[in-house]
């Protein structure tokens, strides 16, 4: 099956969040993804990109880091991969808010982990790999 790949590099700072979302929205529109699922994909990617910028690169002491955004698509699947060279950060090792936390009154709510939870819940598949010194966060959306 024909797969198209689009690639763009962004500076790892918070100014890049909106351009990353715009890049993804443009491609998702071309692929006919509806507004709600496009929003969800942007949200998932945005939350992880924020973590890479605010924790990954910051903890690595790297100030001029980059995030590569790679978008592969065919008729069935849209895959967005974020690659960075910050310290290994596996989002699956983070404690997520459970049902009990989410039901707590907002006064008592712990706020951590919401971003990673949103990343997982808003795409059809979310995975993480660390290979050749690179973190790779992969988001898949079914197009069929």
């Amino acid at each position, binding site marked *: 099956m024909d797969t198209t790949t689009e690639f763009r590099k962004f500076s790892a700072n918070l*100014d890049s*969040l*909106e351009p990353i979302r715009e890049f993804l929205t443009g491609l998702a529109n071309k692929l006919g993804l509806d507004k709600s699922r496009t*929003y969800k994909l942007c*949200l998932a990617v945005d939350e992880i990109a924020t973590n890479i910028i605010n924790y990954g690169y910051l903890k690595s002491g790297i100030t001029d880091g980059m995030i590569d955004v790679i978008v592969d698509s065919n008729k069935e699947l849209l895959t967005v991969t974020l690659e960075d060279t910050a310290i290994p950060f596996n989002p699956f090792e983070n404690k997520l808010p459970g049902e009990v936390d989410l039901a707590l009154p907002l*006064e008592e709510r712990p706020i951590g982990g919401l*971003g990673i939870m949103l990343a997982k819940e808003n795409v059809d598949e979310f995975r993480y790999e660390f290979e050749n010194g690179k973190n790779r966060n992969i988001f898949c959306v079914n197009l069929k």
Partner: protein
Amino acid sequence: MNVSISKNENIVIITAEGSIDSKTAGDLQSQIMGTVAETNNVLLDLSGVSYVSSAGLRVLLMIYRQIKSKNGKVILVGVSEEIRDVMSMTGFINFFEITDSIENALNSF
């Protein structure tokens, strides 16, 4: 992200426009928290907000905590379907009153 603040009797109306992400949430927070600290009633108009991430939810949480501690009230207006989705999957939706117009909101305080 643009923010404006106005008053209608004892109700503070905060109008936000644009995207509330990790970049802009801090600005929004610093622009509104002083005002929120001095009132019991907040109407937050999100009609012009196209995007909210967890950083935006954190600002909502702060407004909520601040107002709740004074037994006040927060009403949201103009919350898009996508933002409602984010609020429901995080359980935030149950704690906020959401109305469809500023008039209805003003009458609900």
